[in-house]
């Protein structure tokens, strides 16, 4: 297969996680991320449970750990920011190595790092095990407004074409010895962006003509009406439900 897959974010594998219905996976990730987000940082035991769940799903999905860690690099900027909070936080301070750090700040930093890592891991696992069309169908079945799903679909569909166009434009500029060095050279980039906008707009018009030609009347048709069984939902939602219960307990007990 290989060429059939859309995205660098997708890992082609056969696993129980890949086989779950897309909408159940989207719902599961949403539930898991929500549970993680509302859990107070002090409930370290809950985070240990979330990590166990995430590691379990990672193992089941056969996604290489290396793939996950590389993708996780995307949240580094947030983590770096969190690193400063203990030093600038207010309230009670304690000695830590050669520094004094704020206790509240340290908990806040821990919360950000733990929640960001777990949340990002869940989303990475979702897109690594579900192809883009599946995620879009999943969102539609979860009753996300059709217009939002359609816009997302078109964006993904045409993004690569627009990137190609930018690439060609840059090559055309470079072929004629355009090497931007200082502000005075910025003009061609600005006009390039302008013409890119016009081209994309015109493409939009042509796509609309193509849609209208095939009977589009302003509402996207429903293409698939596969009904899922309770078991399909149970398979996907089991683990995130555990997370949700943990989050509730952590919130109540404090």
């Amino acid at each position, binding site marked *: 297969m290989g060429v059939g897959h859309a995205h660098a974010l997708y890992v082609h594998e056969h696993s129980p996680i890949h086989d779950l219905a897309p909408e159940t996976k989207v719902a599961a990730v949403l539930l898991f991320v929500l549970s993680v987000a509302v859990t107070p940082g002090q409930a370290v035991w809950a985070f240990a449970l979330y990590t166990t769940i995430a590691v379990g799903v990672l193992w089941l999905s056969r996604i290489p750990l290396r793939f996950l860690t590389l993708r996780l690099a995307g949240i580094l900027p947030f983590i770096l920011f969190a690193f400063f909070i203990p030093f600038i936080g207010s309230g009670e301070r304690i000695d830590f190595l050669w520094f004094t750090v704020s206790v509240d700040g340290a908990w806040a930093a821990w919360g950000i790092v733990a929640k960001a890592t777990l949340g990002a891991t869940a989303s990475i696992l979702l897109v690594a095990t579900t192809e883009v*069309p599946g995620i879009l169908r999943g969102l539609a079945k979860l009753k996300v407004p059709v217009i939002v799903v359609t816009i997302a679909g078109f964006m993904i569909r045409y993004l690569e074409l627009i990137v190609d166009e930018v690439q060609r434009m840059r090559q055309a500029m470079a072929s004629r010895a355009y090497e931007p060095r200082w502000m005075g050279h910025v003009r061609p980039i600005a006009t390039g962006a302008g013409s890119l906008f016009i081209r994309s707009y015109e493409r939009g018009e042509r796509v609309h003509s193509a849609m209208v030609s095939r009977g589009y009347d302003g509402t996207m048709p429903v293409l698939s009406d596969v009904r899922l069984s309770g078991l399909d939902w149970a398979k996907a939602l089991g683990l995130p439900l555990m997370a949700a219960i943990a989050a509730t307990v952590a919130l109540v007990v404090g």
Partner: protein
Amino acid sequence: MTFPALEVTGLEFFYPDGRHALAGVDLSIAAGERVALLGPNGAGKTTLALHLNGIYRPHAGKVVVGGVEVDDHTLASIRRRVGMVFQDPNDQLFMPTVGEDVAFGPANLGLKGEHLDEKVELALGMVGAANLSSRVPHHLSGGEKRLAAIATVLAMEPEVVVLDEPGSGLDPAGRRELISTLAGLEVTLIVITHDLPLALELCPRSVIMDGGRVVADTSTRGLLSDPDLLARHRLETPFGFEMADPLDQ
């Protein structure tokens, strides 16, 4: 009484910038005919095509499809009956997968479930592209995209199919597949092209447009043996091209 598949009379159209793109086009095409629409760039070929299923509306004259005039009330049925394959398949394939794209038209017509799946399978089968159903459009080759784009239109079961430059950007093998696919379709075919050998192979009849008018309407074979007529309208056969003499065969 049988109606022509397509009847265009006195069609005029101005673009918003005032350009007189169509200056009185008259054209009648019988059901089942295959007609090549030739002419230089800017002759009005694509503009005419966009009138045939009511995307553009004429400023004068009319378009009648199988006895039904194109107007606001008939638009939906006209668009089912006249399929339009656009020049750039990327404009035509806008759904996440080829299968969903082919399903888009019939689903708009109200088809659902198994009937819809059957229709998609049938349409992809007609262009020999059944294996493309779950593929993502931007990973297809140029030839595959073109075939998929044609399938999206065939799924609507049109009576007339209009193709704008179907052979452009295809390698010779892709072009060959396209020609044999189109030759096997049982519909009225209008092919806009600059590729005269393709026109000769597919379409017994050719219409030349220039300056927003039909300037010649003749047999493709006769046209290709008239270099003066071709040259007057910026057309030419490829270097070294020779038509096989029908008497030799």
